[in-house]
């Protein structure tokens, strides 16, 4: 990185614990963070100007709370992870803030305020999520400890995934049984946390077993296919994700887990045959599900035949999808401006369809900026994996970054009608506490990984 060039050439190769090293990375992070907070605050102000016609200072705390929290996180990093990547935190902050501004804008349209308001709740969840991120950074001082508990994380992941199926605890919302109720006021989606636990498990499992997965097998059609006993894990994960589709009616989550496992398997073994085998298995399963399960079949019809009036009018038809597309079309190149579109016409504009809402008000230019932010975030994650020295850290960093990338693809692809729509949250943007907590924990893990894998040059020639 250019900005730490001066730092590394100025300091000796092994700075002692007492030597005060100028924290170039953290200074850069603080600079970017302040810009991100400024953009977030101006988004809230613009929403008020656009939708209310005046600035309402009583609600400016929506922007301020998040800023205070992320700056607290920044100062924690100054003490516990000084060499962490300086770009991840500002990018996550900006995405989170844009999400809050959009949710606030929809609250204004729906005339909700106080604890009824989704934006206030989203701000509170952001606070909790950033507190979780700080806790992760403080507790996990070296990512290698996660390797020790590989199988515990695997067990935890499956447990969290199956929790909503427990009678009395699980709750069904709009057809999908992926929530658990916590008291009377909040629901939680344990599957979001499960994806982190499973990423840790896959990374640990593959580092332990990759030799037999990579080198043994029969050659067929120019590719080396694995032995039946090595196929075990992929079949177990496949069965798990298929059971998620069948019992929880959640196609998106199943695709997410299966994609995560395949990518990590490919990374660990560098064998294309695993990917071909896995994609084949998933497509086979999905086609079978679309033929036999009413719910999956409906999603396919809505996708392929969205603009057919009969499908549009039908109950559970493509009304929402098409309204989202209309919103995006209304936005055009530069958007209608904050607070001046009508994103509230689409059902659930603040969670599943927040991308369509943002596309309407910020236009193609704004939507591409958001996609560029995701791209940079994911690229940083891959970069951390590339720079890593140990295989577990490499796999974990790439796996976590890939989860964000795949989730974006599944949900944004669904809203823009590239693939069938499945219910997943847009990372950082969408209203939803469990998703925010999971994504901020991913941010914390990536920051921790980037700090421990950062390689101080031992010699500069």
């Amino acid at each position, binding site marked *: *990185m*250019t*900005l*730490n*060039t001066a730092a*590394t050439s100025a300091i000796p*190769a092994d700075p002692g614990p007492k030597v005060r090293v100028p924290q170039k990375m953290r200074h*850069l992070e603080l600079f*970017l963070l302040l*810009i*991100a907070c*400024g*953009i977030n605050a*101006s*988004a809230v102000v*613009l929403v008020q*100007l*656009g939708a209310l*016609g*005046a600035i309402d200072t009583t609600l400016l705390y929506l922007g301020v709370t998040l800023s205070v929290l992320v700056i607290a996180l920044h100062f924690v990093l100054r003490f516990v992870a000084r060499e962490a990547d*300086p*770009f991840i935190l*500002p*990018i996550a902050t*900006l995405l989170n803030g844009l999400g809050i501004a959009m949710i606030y804008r929809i609250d204004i349209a729906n005339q909700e305020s106080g604890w009824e308001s989704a934006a206030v709740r989203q701000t509170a969840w952001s606070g909790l999520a950033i507190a979780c991120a700080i806790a992760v950074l403080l507790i996990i001082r070296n990512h290698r400890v996660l390797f020790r508990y590989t199988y515990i994380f695997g067990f935890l992941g499956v447990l969290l995934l199956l929790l909503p199926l427990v009678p009395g605890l699980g709750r069904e919302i709009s057809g999908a049984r992926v929530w658990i109720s916590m008291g009377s006021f909040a629901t939680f989606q344990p599957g979001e946390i499960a994806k982190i636990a499973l990423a840790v498990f896959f990374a640990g499992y593959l580092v332990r077993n990759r030799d037999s997965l990579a080198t043994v097998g029969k050659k067929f059609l120019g590719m080396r296919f694995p032995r039946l006993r090595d196929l075990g894990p992929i079949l177990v994960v496949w069965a798990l994700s298929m059971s998620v589709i069948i019992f929880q009616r959640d196609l998106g989550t199943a695709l997410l887990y299966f994609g995560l496992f395949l990518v990590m398997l490919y990374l660990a073994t560098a064998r294309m045959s695993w990917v071909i085998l896995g994609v084949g298995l998933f497509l086979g399963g999905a086609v079978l599900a679309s033929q036999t399960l009413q719910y999956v079949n409906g999603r396919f019809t809505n996708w392929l035949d969205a603009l057919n009036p009969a499908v549009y009018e039908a109950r559970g038809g493509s009304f929402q999808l098409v309204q989202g597309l209309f919103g995006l079309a209304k936005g055009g190149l*530069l*958007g209608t*401006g*904050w607070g*001046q579109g009508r994103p509230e016409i689409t059902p659930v504009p603040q969670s599943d369809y927040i991308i369509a809402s943002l596309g309407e008000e*910020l*236009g193609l*230019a*704004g939507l591409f*900026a958001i996609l*560029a*932010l995701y791209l*940079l975030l994911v690229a940083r994650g891959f*970069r951390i994996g590339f*720079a890593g*020295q140990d295989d577990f850290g490499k796999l974990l960093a790439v796996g976590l970054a890939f989860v964000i990338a795949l989730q974006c693809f599944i949900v944004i692809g669904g809203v823009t009608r590239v693939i069938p729509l499945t219910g997943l949250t847009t990372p950082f943007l969408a209203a939803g506490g469990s998703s925010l907590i999971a994504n901020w924990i991913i941010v914390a893990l990536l920051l921790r990984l980037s700090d421990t894998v*950062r*390689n101080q*040059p*031992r*010699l*500069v*020639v």
Partner: protein
Amino acid sequence: MSPSELTLLVLRLGFLLLLWLFIFGIVYALRSDLFGQRVRKMKTDAPATPVPAAAFAAASAAPAAAARASAAPTPPSSVGERATAQNATRLVITSGPKAGVEFPLTTESITIGRSNDSSLVIRDDYTSTHHARLMLWNEEWMIQDLDSTNGTFLAGSRVAIPTPVPLNATIKIGATSFELRR
């Protein structure tokens, strides 16, 4: 007082501009990651002057060397004993601007390249951003070329596949040579 259409238009465009400036700010800060590390200007009287000729000669001989390397993956054992985690303790620079400098070996792998996150940073015109890697494989030190432009040379022949490194054998990257020693 409600803001005029024009004010809102200017604010709207200003916001999009700000968003993109933030993104380009990050990309600018990342430029060395995307386009590679800046080349350091060599001093004209540096000992590296005869190197371009040598590097070109080596590069032209590279295909033959690569073919040889793939035919016989291990270099002739006459060069010496293989460097292992036990018998190799230090990496010594034998030629180039920092000739004579050395650092101890640990069990961690050593990345070599122009990029700042390499363990051994070599900044000259002939080194790629991520050039090569020295790693322990079954307790033996192996050198792996990471698809570098100008190649990595072990005892004079270009490294095509991960190759065990003998003790005291010269590894040449750009204008710098080094050896693993006891």
